[in-house]
């Protein structure tokens, strides 16, 4: 691997991150909060970036492995440098990095309990990390830095969620630009809608940041339940649903074909899963928890969409529900949103294709010689993509199992270690047990936090980008 190239690009990335941190600095200035955490963060991040770029001037061509390294270390660096304001605000280093990683990876798991006691600028930065991480730091970087060119494609592939790359325009930079513009555009609509629903501008912006990113940080300890407004819940549910679908599809619907949604297999399956899970959960809440049908439905649809899109907002402490309700949320935790969305998880398209794959295997046991292509949107999915999906799921579950095991060894109970593993690996946020929606991850032991930070990092970059660096082939010249 060419270290010079990687460090050179990381330097540029850090300078860029330093510039972004000027935004919370301005917010701090406006609210009269202490400027010192952000000023220090801007200077440290920016200087490190400048030093790296000064020391490593290599502009050699790079290949796939450099691309993986840049994306993986880029995200790690963003989480570490992004945690500086939290550290200076009094978080312990591990907690600061946990919160920052949880932000950038749009997980939404928090170590804070008494959220309202923190300054507005810190909470703003916390939400903003999610918004930047949602569509992707690297993707934004590709838009801003024109010099990346062909190499941008490697980065795009290593970061973009989903089994295949979905190019809207022939050039990757144009594609990334369009996706960011669509993202920005829908975000602005959500801010306007939330203000109409009587939210303050500050709350509207911070909640939009975390909704559109499928993140789940809230500036209130009680999450969305703090507003207790069906209107706000409806708006947030709608935008979570949008953010959990493919942004390339949004673009096509807006600009090329209004019917795109109805033609997309993944979107149809995504809607179907949400509908079925909502109905079953409504029934379960009504029969087991004694809620009225209307309340049951209100909780069910919000919670299913929130968990399935891996946002992690809560309007109710679902930790108190009976197991029948919890099991539905646990099931949709594994699914996640659509490819090309801001959500995490295994992704609907992978599940969809795996089901077709299984169906074909069954069919082949009757007709061993049958040739049956697996199709997505009436296009055949190549065999290598199918194999990549199968290996993705296998590795995903292996990481899930190993991290669950590690957490139990550290003394956590089964439900808590199980759900905190999937909630971080799937970038969801809250789990059940001690890590429930109204609780905090602060109770997790130190090593446990490290495991969860790794989970978030691996989960956001969809396993391969990080795991490939653990293989000896990656480091072999």
């Amino acid at each position, binding site marked *: 691997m060419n270290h010079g190239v990687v460090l050179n690009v990381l330097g540029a990335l850090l300078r860029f991150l330093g510039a972004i941190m000027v935004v919370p600095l301005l917010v701090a200035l406006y609210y009269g909060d202490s400027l010192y955490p952000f000023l220090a963060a801007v200077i440290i991040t920016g200087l490190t970036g400048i030093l790296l770029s000064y020391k490593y001037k290599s502009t050699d061509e790079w290949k796939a492995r450099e691309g993986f390294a840049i994306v993986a270390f880029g995200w790690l660096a963003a989480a570490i440098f992004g945690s500086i304001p939290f550290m200076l605000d009094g978080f312990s280093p591990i907690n600061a990095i946990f919160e920052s990683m949880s932000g950038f990876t749009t997980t939404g798991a928090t170590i804070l309990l008494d959220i309202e006691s923190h300054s507005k600028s810190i909470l703003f930065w916390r939400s903003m990390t999610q918004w930047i991480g949602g569509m992707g730091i690297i993707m934004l970087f590709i838009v801003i830095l024109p010099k990346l060119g062909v190499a941008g494609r490697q980065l795009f592939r290593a970061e973009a969620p989903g089994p295949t790359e979905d190019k809207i325009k022939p050039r990757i930079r144009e594609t990334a630009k369009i996706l960011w513009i669509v993202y920005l555009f829908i975000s602005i609509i959500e801010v306007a809608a939330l203000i109409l629903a009587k939210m303050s501008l500050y709350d509207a912006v911070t909640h939009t940041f975390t909704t559109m990113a499928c993140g789940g940080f809230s500036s209130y300890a009680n999450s969305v339940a703090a507003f207790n407004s069906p209107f706000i819940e409806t708006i947030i549910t709608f935008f979570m649903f949008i953010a959990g679908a493919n942004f390339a599809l949004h673009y096509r619907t807006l600009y090329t074909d209004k019917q795109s949604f109805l033609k997309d297999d993944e979107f149809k399956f995504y809607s179907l899963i949400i509908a079925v899970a909502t109905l079953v959960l409504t029934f379960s809440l009504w029969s087991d928890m004694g809620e009225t049908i209307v309340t049951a439905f209100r909780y069910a649809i919000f919670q299913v969409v929130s968990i399935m899109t891996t946002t992690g907002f809560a309007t109710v402490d679902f930790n108190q529900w009976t197991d029948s309700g919890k099991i539905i949320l646990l099931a949709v935790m594994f699914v996640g949103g659509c490819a090309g969305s801001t959500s995490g998880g295994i992704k609907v398209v992978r599940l969809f294709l795996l089901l077709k794959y299984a169906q074909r295997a069954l069919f082949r046991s009757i007709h061993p010689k049958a*040739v049956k292509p697996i199709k997505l949107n009436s296009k*055949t999915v190549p065999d290598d993509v199918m194999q990549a999906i199968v290996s993705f799921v296998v590795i995903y579950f292996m990481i899930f199992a190993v991290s669950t095991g590690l957490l139990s060894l550290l003394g956590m109970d089964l439900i808590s270690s199980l759900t905190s593993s999937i909630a971080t690996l799937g970038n969801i946020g809250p789990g059940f047990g001690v890590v429930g929606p109204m609780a905090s991850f602060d109770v997790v032991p130190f090593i446990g936090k490290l495991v969860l930070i790794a989970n978030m990092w691996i989960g956001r970059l969809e396993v391969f980008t990080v795991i490939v660096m653990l293989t000896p082939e990656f480091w072999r010249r």
Partner: protein
Amino acid sequence: MKIVIIGAGEVGYHIAKALYQTNDVVIIDKNEEACERADELDVHVLHGNGANVSILNDILEGADLLVAVTGSDEVNIVACMGSKLIAKDKDKLKTVAMVSNPDYIDKPVTKRPQIGIEVMICPELSLASEIARILAIPSAIDVEYFADGKVEMMEFVVPENHSFVNKHVQELHLANCCIVSALFRDSEVIIPHGDDIIKGNDRIVVIGKPDSMVEVRDMFGEKVGKRSKVMIIGGGIVGFYLAKLVAKSDFDLKIIESNKERSMVIAEELPDVLVLNGDGTDIDLLKNEGISNMDVVISVTNSDEKNLLCSLLAKQLGVKKVIARSDRSDYVSLFEMVGVDSAVSPRQTTINEVLKLTFGQGIESIASIEGEKAEIIEYTTSKKSKIVGKPLKNMKFPSGAIISMVVHKGNTVIPRGEYVIEGGDRVVVFSLQSANAEVEKFFK
């Protein structure tokens, strides 16, 4: 008429054979052996490349028709385009190209005047649509339509125990407006008169109005009912196009194709069809896929030998009806003799299309049955035609031919001796090949 044929292979040779008696035929081929074979006919044979402009230049003088039927699509296309460019009288010269590659052609027969090809024929696609027609009517072994579908021709096999056996033709109670036009017994063709007797295993050709033909169809059993199970062996151009045509109808369709990539292409294009990657002679595969329950098995690989083997295997395993492709038209009757219900040759359509062009004016369509022994030809009469204006019994119509149907102002009539044909009528004639030239004179 001066006719230039490029390519002396199966198709070229048979076209030359059908035409040399009444026309000046020049035939060009690269292959020495093919040239020698063609030389046995009374034609002018040239050894060389048919797409070579200087060769064409020498022989195109006064030519009326250029038929390019070599094995190479590109040579055929180039030969037609080139001839059109160098011909002195561009409107007089008609060009026909045989083209197999579906990239160039998407219908059995099409026109491409913009590139100088009057008629472009794809033998494989023609064959596929012919088989699709036969499939639509399970009891028939051949089906053709005339006069825009107002007249239908079907060929049936008379089973040993059928009520028709040992009856005189005049005793048959066929539906209104249907007529038995021909009987085939072994290799003999009989133009039936009232007192001819029908025997078991005869193949009987009936021509009539489509709505009456439904009753005839029922007489030969097999009412259209449950979803028919059809298996196609070979997913080449013929098999694939046939599957596409048939997939729209209500069939339970399976295709066996030995090439893996090719089977993938078919499976992608036709999601409702079960595509099997394997060999059509693999008995285990055939049994596993329930071949004995099949209503029809169609073998259309590129190899005649394999098609015969697959068909016989299928028949042995209990399939009701087997259809096989035979590239060499000489084998057609042989195939049917050893048990294939219907053997079809892709060359036939090309030959028919070319013949249609040479018959000159008045010919609407033409169908060959039983190899090239007999043809059913549809003419449109004009006021000047010799046949118009007199009762038919006063005509000296050749004995090898019979006027089967007349479509007069939209009505289908079986003409009797007193019938008078008028100008503008469409006339369907069944004719032995030897009588064709005679018949044609009546319609000039």
